[in-house]
């Protein structure tokens, strides 16, 4: 009886050491934009289950919503049909213009713009306190590290690491993510955007004298290999200036609903 607890302590210490080893394997794989093989295997096994749970919750929400307001459901269905028609018209025109831009860039021997094609993905898991999302698409679908992820309105985040059938997205609200952004003005005010909280982002301007104001739309600047120019990010709601230190920054409210996003597009 006296030997048993000491053996259990050994098991505990061994498992704690193993935790450290696995953690370090995950960190080094994530630095290279991937996940270790064992994490990929666990994800492959559990993502279908996570997807089924998400679908069940969607069905529960839809049922409760329809129960509360049948009239609202009818109105939203009609609006959905109208918006589908409008989107189809815009998509045709957009594809035509994008083709024109591509051929002009080819003529000028410029590289192809990123973000031309997109992959639809489900958010199978959300970790808001860590500013991460797990998506149902991965390397097998053409997803690569650094690709931007958008919902219907705006930029949600950037792909952080990729497994064959899944990927992790770092949301714009993450303090460790830096994105080139600009306030839409004439001339545009460019700067570097970072996250602070799910409802507040910080845009630090490069030029102190460029005009900006509250409610200005902030979009991606396109000074990146993978993130195209012009993806909406949010709106400025407060400006902070410090002439002594020559710094100027603004607080930005994100347009994407980071807490409840369920379906997204990965721009390739």
């Amino acid at each position, binding site marked *: 009886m006296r030997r*048993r*607890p000491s*053996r*259990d302590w050994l*098991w*505990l210490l061994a*498992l*704690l050491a*193993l*935790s*450290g*080893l*696995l*953690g*370090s394997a*995950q*960190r080094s794989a*994530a630095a290279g934009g991937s*996940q270790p093989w*064992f*994490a990929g295997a*666990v*994800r492959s*096994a*559990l*993502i279908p*289950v*996570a997807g089924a*749970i*998400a679908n069940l*919750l969607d069905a529960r*929400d839809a049922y409760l919503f329809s129960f509360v307001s049948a009239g609202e459901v009818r109105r939203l269905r009609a609006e959905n049909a109208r918006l589908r028609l409008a989107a189809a018209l815009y998509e045709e025109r957009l594809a035509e213009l994008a083709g024109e831009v591509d051929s002009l860039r080819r003529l000028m021997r410029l590289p192809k713009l990123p973000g031309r094609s997109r992959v639809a993905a489900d958010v*199978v*898991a*959300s*970790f*808001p*306190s*860590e500013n*991460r999302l*797990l998506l149902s698409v991965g390397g097998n679908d053409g997803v690569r590290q650094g690709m931007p992820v958008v919902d219907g309105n705006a930029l949600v985040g950037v792909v*952080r*690491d990729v497994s064959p059938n899944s990927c*992790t997205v770092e949301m714009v609200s993450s303090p460790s993510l830096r994105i080139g952004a600009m306030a839409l003005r004439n001339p545009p005010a460019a700067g570097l955007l970072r996250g602070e909280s799910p409802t507040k982002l910080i845009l630090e301007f490069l030029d102190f004298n460029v005009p900006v104001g509250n409610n200005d739309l902030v979009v991606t600047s396109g000074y990146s290999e993978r993130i195209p120019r012009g993806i909406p990010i949010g709106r400025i709601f407060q400006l902070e200036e410090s002439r002594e230190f020559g710094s100027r920054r603004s607080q930005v409210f994100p347009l994407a609903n980071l*807490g409840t996003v369920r379906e997204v597009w990965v721009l390739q």
Partner: protein
Amino acid sequence: MRERGGLTGWGGVLVAAVLLGLAAAMQGQARRLAVFGAEADYPLLVACTLALFETSRGGAVLGFLGGFLQGCMAGFGLGYVAFSRTIAGYLAARSREWIGPGLPTAVGVVFACTAIAHLLELFLPPAKAVFPSLGDTIGTATYNGVLAIPLYALLNRFFKPAKP
């Protein structure tokens, strides 16, 4: 079921594996299942509740597996999550050995071990804001404590606590 109790045989292993897998898959939807802003920690709930039927060695293994699955799904912090869950699982099993089995023990142990695991994570990198995280920890521990009631009652029908 063998005389020594615990999650013995293939049945016990299968139940533990299925419950931990389901819990890890469910954790990504924890926000949608929040009550008054408090989110449950499903892998920790399952690991601690199952640990109440196991020896401290089994508890540590269950905690480790819960943390491992959770860290793999999240894609970050695997080391910290597995570390804190291993300690929580070990303590859950040890507490049951000290206090004795029963539903009130289950609620108290799951509450305490959830709080300990989350407090441990608070002091591990990356740095977090202390006061909001403390509030979240209390909310999660309470939610887990409440969820432990039906889960323990269900498991108690099929398994007996292991003899230390």
